[in-house]
Structure formats: C-alpha cells, structure tokens
C-alpha cells in the first residue's frame, strides 16, 4: 500500500524500572486492520495509550496523514480522528447509554438528537441498542456496543480496539468482525490488540509482534500459523498442558436446584442450577461475564450462604456453611479478583498463606498463628509454582498479575482439597504462566480431586475440561463431554448472540 495514515518511528517510553516501549516503529494504512500482538507486559497497552494521548512518549515521533502528531490528551487524539475501545470498559454504570456516548464526544448534540443518531448508527451497523437504558443493566456484549457506537459517531480515521473479544460469545465475535469489516471497507483503519491468534488470522491484514517492549517481527497473519505467531510472542516453544484421563470416581460435589439472589447490585441471580462433579473430573463452566459466574463462586466457596441442601459435599449438606467450615471438609475455592478477594493486597505472602491455609494446614494453635508454619507453607507454594518474588515476606500487591495468580491457585491446590473451585484461573496471565496453572489444575484432578473451572476463555475450558456446561443469565446448561464439542455448539450453549444480528449488507 502506498498511503500511510499513521506512522510511528522510534517510539520509546520508560517507567521507573521497566522500559515499556523501546524504539517501536510501525505504519498503518487507511482501511487496514493491523494487529498488535504480544504477551502481557509486552508494551501493547502503553503503545496505544501513546497514540490516544494518555501517555507521553519519552522519545520518537508520530505522524498522522504526513503531519507531525503529538496528542496532549485524548481530546486532541479524538479531534484528530483517533478513537479507542478500551479493554476494561470505560463506561459509567449509573448513567444511560446516551449519556455515556455523550461523554465520549467532543461536541455532543442535545440528548434527544443524540438518541436518534445512536439508533441510526446502531441499525446501520447491526448493533441494536436502546439509548435510554442504564448501562449497569446491560450485558457485556451490549456494553461493548456502547463503546463502539461512541467511537463510530465520531467518524474515526483510526479505531483502536484493546482486547475487544475477551468478553464476547463466539457469535457476538462474528458480528463484531462483520462490523469491523464494514468499517474497513469504508476506509477506516483499525488497530486491533489481542492475544487470540485465530481471531487475528481471521480478521487482520498485518500483524506487529511485541516482546518486552520491542518489535520482534511483522507478519501477514493469513500466511503464518497461529503456532508460529505464538512462538514469536513468547520467544520460545510453547508447552501445551496434557494429562492422562483417569477413571472417574464417586460423586463429590452436588448442586441441587441451587437458586440464590445476587448479593451485588447489577448482579445476576442463580437460577435452579443442578450438576454433579465426580472425583478426578474437571467440569468447565463457560459463559460471558456477568451471567452469574461471580455469584456461583460465592455460593460454592461459602461466602454467600444458601439453603443447606442446595450444595452437598460427599452427600453432606453444606450450603449454609461459611468458607472455613467448607475448607475443613475439603472444599477450597479461588475467586477471580486476585487483589482484594483472593489475596489481601497489603499483607505479605506469608500472611496471605495463613489466611486461607490456617484450617487445613493447622496453622493456628491455641488461638495463636504458627508463623513458622505459615512461612514454610508460603515458601512451598513459591517453590512448587515457580512464583517469581524475592521471598514470602513481600506483600501480595508487589507481585505481577501472573505471579500472584500462580500463588493464589497454588495456595488452594497445596491444601489438597477434595473439591477445588476456581474462577478465571488464568485471567490476565501470560501464556507460559497460564500453561503452568492449567497443568497444575489437571495434575490435581488426576490425583482424584473434583475440579470446577469457571472461565470466560473458551479455549481454556475446552483444553482442560472433561465436561462442559454453559452459564447463561444465571442458568446452567446440562453438562456435555468436552471432547468433540465444536465451537459452534459451545456458542449455542452460551445462548448464542444476545439479540444481535449480522450487519445488513447496505441498510
């Protein structure tokens, strides 16, 4: 291509102790879908934040349409025609769709006109959306539509998308891609950040791969395999978890018509969930965020009490028991949010080990904490799960996301539970750490533990689960054997596309 819309040359940004971007150069043409690939911490987010004016690079130059371009803030970037859909949605729960859209625009028209325009654009691109609804009540897919429409209303030249598909069902992803292809046909350039390689192969024209802040290669994603791209990202060969399927044992965990209201505002109530998990079995529960995953974990871990008979462990009713009583009986859980839920951020790893392990590891004697034992336990977790930290006296907050995740999962696994429940075990974790965590979960199952893995990453669920069930609006589908299940079938189990339709050819 001869034209260039945006050119970056030698962009460098350093934070204290880490170089986020080192001499990064890339070019994007109008109508091009350009993928930015890399592990967590490779510097993708910093790079797009520099383009969007949220981060000022230390050195290097950017050119937009041949003109020097150095946005002082996101407003300047938006004025120049650059918009961004954020990974963690930048939406306001208590405000309406129209108000949220207005906040992302420079000069929004009066709300009534804006509502009409939202309806127009959402029809045109096949993204139905009611402007008067409160964002807090929307599903994850609908929330993303709000962000996309906010961008589209500004006629962008460049649309930046930061991991847009991580919260969507396969059908919703397909509809998103239709919308993006339509934009591309209209000449809009798209900078697409993801680590889902198959998606990039399906959508993108070029890919730039970052590792540790540096560009390590460019490729045409339609011509190289996903494995080759993954190895460029990681800088080595990738270890794929594996295990021998053992014979299935007795039923350990039974959910019997489990129903409960959500303890959170804007949460999803659990509706009549019944399922059994056997010793040695891994039950994968897939579903789009906000369909009851958090509530299910709370009900299983004991943080939310339910009727005694709704949750049974080896036939014993435990629905009314609090977390520590359940741990004593052999049920351990690791929630999704690492900082503040699975671990206390400002307490040391030793203290965090004692908080969860005190019952099963006998770390409390006569009301006093056995700190020596707690430190040994923490050290064991660090050694066995390859947690990169100077030592157990460091606070949980100081660990990177992947390392802390290995720590909190390892902490539960090493308590040798009979039943382990994990929510999003590899959320925001890089590929090699994720592989290690999955391997550890599968090893635990091979030793005869019943495991429930709740995850929004379908590839992950399909990789480690024996049986797959989908959580949709607080209801759980009947589990099916994971082997042989196709992605289309999974998508249908997830409830398909939530009132979405493929873009009309020319509406």
């Amino acid at each position, binding site marked *: 291509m001869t034209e260039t819309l945006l050119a970056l040359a030698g962009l460098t940004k350093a934070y204290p102790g880490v170089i986020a971007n080192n001499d990064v150069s890339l070019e994007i043409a109008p109508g091009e879908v350009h993928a930015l690939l890399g592990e967590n911490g490779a510097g993708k987010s910093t790079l797009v934040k520099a383009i969007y004016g949220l981060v000022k690079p230390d050195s290097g130059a950017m050119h937009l349409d041949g003109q020097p371009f150095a946005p002082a803030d996101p407003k300047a970037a938006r004025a120049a025609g650059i918009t961004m859909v954020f990974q963690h949605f930048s939406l*306001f729960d208590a405000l309406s769709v129209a108000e949220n859209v207005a906040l992302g625009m420079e000069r929004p028209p009066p709300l009534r006109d804006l509502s009409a325009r939202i309806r127009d654009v959402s029809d045109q691109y096949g993204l139905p959306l009611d402007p008067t609804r409160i964002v807090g009540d929307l599903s994850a897919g609908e929330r993303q539509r709000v962000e996309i429409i906010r961008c589209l209303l500004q006629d962008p030249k460049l649309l930046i998308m930061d991991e847009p598909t991580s919260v969507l069902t396969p059908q919703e992803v397909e509809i998103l891609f239709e919308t993006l292809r339509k934009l591309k046909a209209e000449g809009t350039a798209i900078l697409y950040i993801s680590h889902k390689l198959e998606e990039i192969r399906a959508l993108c024209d070029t890919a730039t791969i970052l590792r540790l802040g540096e560009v390590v290669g460019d490729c045409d994603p339609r011509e190289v395999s996903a494995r080759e791209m993954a190895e460029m990202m990681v800088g080595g060969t990738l270890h794929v978890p594996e295990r021998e399927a053992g014979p299935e044992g007795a039923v350990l965990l039974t959910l019997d018509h489990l129903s409960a209201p959500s303890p959170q505002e804007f949460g999803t109530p659990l509706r009549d969930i019944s399922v059994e998990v056997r010793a040695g079995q891994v039950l994968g529960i897939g579903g789009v965020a906000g369909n009851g995953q958090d509530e299910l974990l709370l009900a299983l871990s004991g943080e939310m009490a339910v009727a005694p008979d709704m949750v049974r462990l080896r036939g014993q009713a435990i629905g009314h028991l609090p977390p520590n009583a359940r741990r004593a009986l052999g049920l351990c859980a690791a929630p999704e949010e690492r900082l503040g839920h699975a671990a206390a951020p400002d307490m040391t790893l030793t203290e965090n080990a004692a908080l969860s392990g005190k019952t099963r590891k006998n770390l409390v004697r006569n009301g006093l904490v056995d700190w020596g034992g707690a430190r040994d336990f923490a050290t064991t977790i660090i050694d066995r799960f390859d947690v990169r930290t100077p030592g157990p006296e460091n606070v949980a907050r100081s660990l990177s996301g992947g390392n802390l995740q290995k720590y909190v999962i390892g902490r539960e696994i090493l308590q040798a539970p009979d039943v382990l429940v994990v929510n999003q075990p590899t959320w925001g974790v890089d590929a090699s750490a994720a592989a290690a965590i999955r391997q550890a979960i599968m090893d635990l199952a091979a030793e005869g533990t019943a495991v429930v893995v709740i995850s929004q990453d379908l590839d992950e669920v399909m990789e480690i689960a024996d049986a797959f069930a989908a959580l949709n609006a607080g209801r759980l589908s009947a589990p099916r054997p994971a082997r042989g299940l196709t992605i289309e079938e999974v998508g249908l189990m997830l409830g398909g596309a939530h009132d979405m339709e493929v873009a009309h050819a020319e509406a």
Partner: protein
Amino acid sequence: MDLTAIDPLLLLASLMVASTPILLAALGELVVERAGVLNLGVEGMMITGAACGIIFSTLTGNAWLGFAGAALGGLLLSFLFAVLTQLLLSNQVATGLALTLFGLGLSALLGQGFAGTRPPAFPKLDIPLLSNLPVMGQIAFRHDGMVYLGLGLVAAVWYFLTRTRAGLVLRAVGENHDAAHALGYPVVLIRFGAIMFGGACAGLGGAYISLVRVPQWTEGMTAGAGWIALAIVVFAGWKPGRLLLGAYLFGGVTVLQLNLQAAGLAIPVEYLSMSPYVATIIVLVVLAAGRKPGSLGQTFHASR
C-alpha cells in the same frame, strides 16, 4: 397546655427560615459527593462561615457583604481540604474530620472579639403583590433574600446536574473516576471546583445561623447542623429535590417541637428535642435511598 398559642401560618413561615442553613450546607455537600468526594468537614466550614459572617458584616455594616465573606471563609477552608485530598492524596474521611475540628478551633479564635456583638439587620424582602396574598403571602413571600437564594440554588443545582453537559461530566467523574480520566476529563480540577462550591455553600449556611437565626456570635453555635446536612445528603439519595424535602422536614419538626415546648406539652423536653432527627431519618429512609456515586470517597491517582 395551650395548643391554640401555636399559629400555623407563623409555624410554616418560620419553617422556611429554620431550614435554610441546613439546606444550603447540604446542597453544597451534595454537589461535592456527586463529584465523588466525601467531605466530612461541613460542620467546620459552617462554623467558620458563621464567624466570618459576623466579622465581615460588623466591619462593613452590610449583611450581604457578611454573607460574601462567609462564603469566602468556607471556600478557603474547603480549598485546604481539596489540596490535601486531591493533590496530596490524603484520606478523605480523616481529613474531613480534621477539618471539622480545625474549623471549630479557628472560628473560636476568629470570633473572640465579636462575642455578643449584634450583626447589622438583614432586611426581609417584601415582595410587592405576592406578599399581600392572603395565606401564602405570610408563609412564603415575606422572607429575607437568603431563603430565596437557597431555593434558587436547589433549582440551579438540579438543572446543572440533570440538564447540562458540565453536570454530566461532574456526575461521570463521581461515578467512575478512572473511566472519566481515560476519556480525558480533568478529574482533579473538576473535584477542586465541586469541593470549593461545597465550602462556599457551607459558609453561607453557617452565616445564616449567626446573622439571621440567632443573630449573634457564640462559640460552637452551629451545634451539629453540619452533621445533619451530611446525613440529609445520604438519605435524600443525592437528589436535590429530596434534599429540599429533607431539609424542610427537619426545619419543620424543629420549629414545631420548639412551639410545643413553649406550649408546655406533657412530653419530656428530651424527646421533643430529638424528634426532628428521628422524623427526618424515618421519612427519608422510608422513601428508599438512591444509589451512591460509584467513586465516592475513593482517592484518585492517575497512575496508569
């Protein structure tokens, strides 16, 4: 006991006067909290406003200038709070409590030479025609300017928050400061503005006590009005309309119980004195509270 001594018209008229200090202070705090900041220093800013009001009005001989000085005093005190919590990232709860203690001490110091002085009279507006209406005239149209300024501010704040772009941005900052920052809105600057508006309003409310209600300077004369204002903001669900209702209810029961005391009702005085607080809380709780701003009381730091 002689209940006939209570004139209902006079009662309703004095309700509006009795509610004004709390209404003003609570309205300012409502804007502050909608911007996501919890300033527990309302009591301190009110009492400082009360002292500044006496000082400025006595020195200038003009009650309006007294109110202006009171607003300035409250604003300066809230500026201190804004610097501490928004720039130096101190804890909002602790800083707010400290601000109340500081305000109480500062006002005692400032007001030392003014104890017992009578501030210049604050004229009542006799609104032509309207004030001659048979019943409503006496109740609603023979008050001083601050009563109407308070009502006007309620309407203005409601309009600002629900109808204007700036109000939408302010609510957005209070709802999710990280998202507002990501969209390029100046979170700290907006919060500075809101905090200082809150300070000025609290100062006006305090000055209304020392210039109109009492009117003279006594140490600690706000006597917890700032805390009631804070409670009304929460119970009113952060909505200006309900705030007006809450403030009038509190003022109304206060006036009523004073009248009942004077009439010699056979209920212990202590029960009567607590009745405004109980009545306000019960009514506003029954009305079901709204949703609090998502980022309320959290420290914002643009670290990413």
